[in-house]
């Protein structure tokens, strides 16, 4: 009898450990023989803690379970998959789950994250074996053909970046995973590290084979202690099994990797600040060029990719580039693990082919707001992303379509707000957050964000509103074009989108909003 309970931090945050303990105790008291397997999360967070029971028909779920529900679940016969008020039926038939295209997250929530046999039984390390037999150039060609673009937000073609590093001549090259997932509304990196860490290790190892690198680092933010623990444990297992170290899978290829922990600086998610931080310095942005692919970590050619980009590589090598490129629209190939967050009824991770509309994601999949009030705004792409009003919900989820509407998909986060939101406050927060996190290297970001928050304060205080709105817009132009990196450069997105789509929140009560 096998019962599956997540050990994902979000599940733990709502009591998964207590539920697991209560189930184990209840089973003992009743003399029932059962095995509890801790998994990652399926990503349906409104159902967490979600308890799954293995039945001949498949895994049947119950959620959200609290410790008080446990005796009742036993009484109802949940171990045979019988009905209970918390039944959600076969987990993989839940519409939220069934509608997804789980490629990158195929194993997340299914297996014990540290069970290497289970990982292999679900296709793990087939991709690396293929990369080793293809060789470097062919592996890069495969990644290029898949159309995969950087999932951190910039959307740069991964294969082209790899080709640059592959053809660079150097005595040392590095593979660097950016797991400094600081955007509010995103948790895909965390879920994958906690739920399927070997996928990341395999993806980074394939990258190492493809470009001829021997050392790798995963830079994880300190706010993710559980992910750090799981990742370190998985690396230890991979080393023992010859999947990291001097002879990868018995070949002559050498690669090893290490977790490094950030220290609470959002800007270190910017790749050049991340390089500085890993080198032991203040996380200040570097001017580009030179690009990190040529002059990266310790001045050596470095593949810096987002975690999700690396974690998608094993699928591409296992199933082939075409299998991945078959999904998607336009120049956005494959899938995106969209993260539905904030004030949303069905929040969680929804991996889907590009092309689905924002409205489908928020209203159909996400079920609208959690509060039951009308959805008023959705911030797409984290604190540097634009606020979309419902009249733009027809925007397809696609890098170019979002850019065409002055937005960005970023790392795939969507934060939903109901009609109680004050968009002037959110615009002010965007500036204040930028001021708080600015690395200080360039003036538009360091000073501009500070002045921006002050000017929005004046608008909120109804002081010379029109003049100050014009000033904020002007300041945003300066930040957009004058900043060194995306922190100062993209902070105008939430500010300008709030001003454009929600002007009524910036006008004194009763005053008509001037047309542009």
């Amino acid at each position: 009898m096998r019962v599956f309970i997540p050990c994902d931090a979000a599940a733990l945050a709502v009591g998964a450990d207590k539920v697991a303990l209560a189930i184990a105790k209840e089973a003992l008291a009743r003399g029932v023989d059962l095995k509890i397997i801790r998994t990652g999360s399926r990503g349906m967070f409104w159902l967490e803690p979600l308890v799954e029971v293995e039945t001949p028909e498949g895994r049947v779920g119950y959620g959200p379970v609290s410790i008080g529900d446990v005796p009742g679940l036993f009484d109802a016969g949940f171990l045979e998959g019988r009905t209970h008020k918390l039944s959600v039926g076969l987990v993989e038939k839940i519409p939220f789950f069934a509608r997804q295209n789980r490629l990158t997250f195929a194993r997340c929530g299914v297996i014990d994250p540290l069970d290497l046999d289970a990982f292999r039984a679900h296709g793990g390390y087939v991709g690396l074996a293929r990369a080793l037999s293809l060789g470097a150039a062919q592996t890069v060609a495969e990644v290029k053909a898949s159309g995969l673009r950087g999932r951190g937000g910039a959307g740069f073609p991964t294969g082209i970046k790899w080709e640059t590093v592959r053809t660079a001549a150097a005595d040392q090259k590095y593979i660097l995973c950016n797991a400094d997932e600081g955007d509010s509304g995103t948790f895909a990196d965390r879920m994958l590290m906690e739920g399927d860490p070997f996928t990341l290790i395999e993806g980074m190892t394939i990258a190492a084979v493809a470009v001829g690198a021997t050392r790798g680092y995963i830079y994880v933010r300190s706010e993710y202690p559980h992910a750090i623990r799981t990742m370190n444990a998985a690396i230890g297992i991979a080393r023992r099994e010859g999947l990291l170290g001097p002879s990868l899978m018995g070949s002559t290829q050498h690669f090893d990797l290490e977790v490094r922990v950030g220290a609470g600086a959002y800007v270190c998610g910017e790749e050049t600040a991340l390089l500085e931080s890993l080198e032991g310095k203040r996380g200040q942005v570097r001017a580009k060029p030179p690009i990190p692919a040529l002059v990266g970590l310790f001045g050596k050619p470095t593949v810096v990719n987002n975690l999700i980009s690396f974690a998608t590589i094993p699928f591409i090598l296992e199933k082939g580039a075409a299998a991945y490129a078959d999904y998607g629209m336009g120049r956005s190939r494959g899938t995106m693990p969209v993260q539905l967050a904030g004030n949303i009824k069905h929040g969680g991770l929804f991996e889907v082919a590009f092309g689905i509309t924002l409205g489908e994601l928020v209203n159909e999949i996400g079920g609208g707001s959690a509060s039951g009030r009308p959805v008023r705004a959705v911030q797409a792409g984290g604190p540097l992303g634009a606020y979309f009003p419902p009249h733009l919900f027809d925007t397809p989820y696609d890098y170019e379509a979002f850019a065409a509407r002055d937005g960005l998909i970023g790392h795939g986060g969507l934060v939903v707000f109901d009609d109680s939101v004050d968009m002037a406050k959110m615009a002010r927060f965007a500036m204040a957050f930028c001021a708080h996190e600015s690395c200080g290297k360039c003036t538009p970001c360091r000073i501009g964000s500070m002045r921006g928050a002050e000017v929005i304060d004046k608008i909120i205080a109804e002081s010379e509103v029109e003049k100050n709105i014009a000033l904020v817009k002007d300041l945003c132009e300066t930040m957009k074009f004058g900043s060194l990196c995306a922190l100062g450069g993209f902070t105008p997105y939430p500010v300008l989108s709030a001003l454009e789509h929600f002007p009524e929140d910036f006008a004194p009560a009763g005053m008509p909003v001037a047309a542009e």
Partner: protein
Amino acid sequence: MTHVWDSDKAEDIIAAHEGLEGPMLPILHGMQEAFGYIPEAVVRLIAARLNLSRAEVYGVVSFYHDFRREPAGRHVLKLCRAEACQSVGSEANAATLLRRLGLGWGGTTPDGRLTVEAVYCLGLCACGPSALLDGEPHGRLDAAALEALAAEAV
């Protein structure tokens, strides 16, 4: 959690990490774990051992929000203030708690029991408002649940 300054221990922490590429952050994390904050003596020690100026080490310590210059309370409650938690009412709940405790962000109760800090995203954005209490995650913290959590830390 009592953290007593111990220069031998500090030397050991440096020795355990100085062979790494870019050992600075691992050393600082080790120090904060051992002593609860980054004592001034640590800055001098690291500078000497890594052949850096004290200004360079101080520059790193002061850049990162994680590194404390003085000890925190016995318990540390990190409340998320980022957008996803704001959308479900985190700011009002936090303001109520801070007012009741008589604290500002980053403040410690006079009895040294609890430090309340701001954090910008814990990756628990679909079950907010969220927090970390001594490193353990907590979600769906409405006003009552937050008060109960803060009371738990004794």
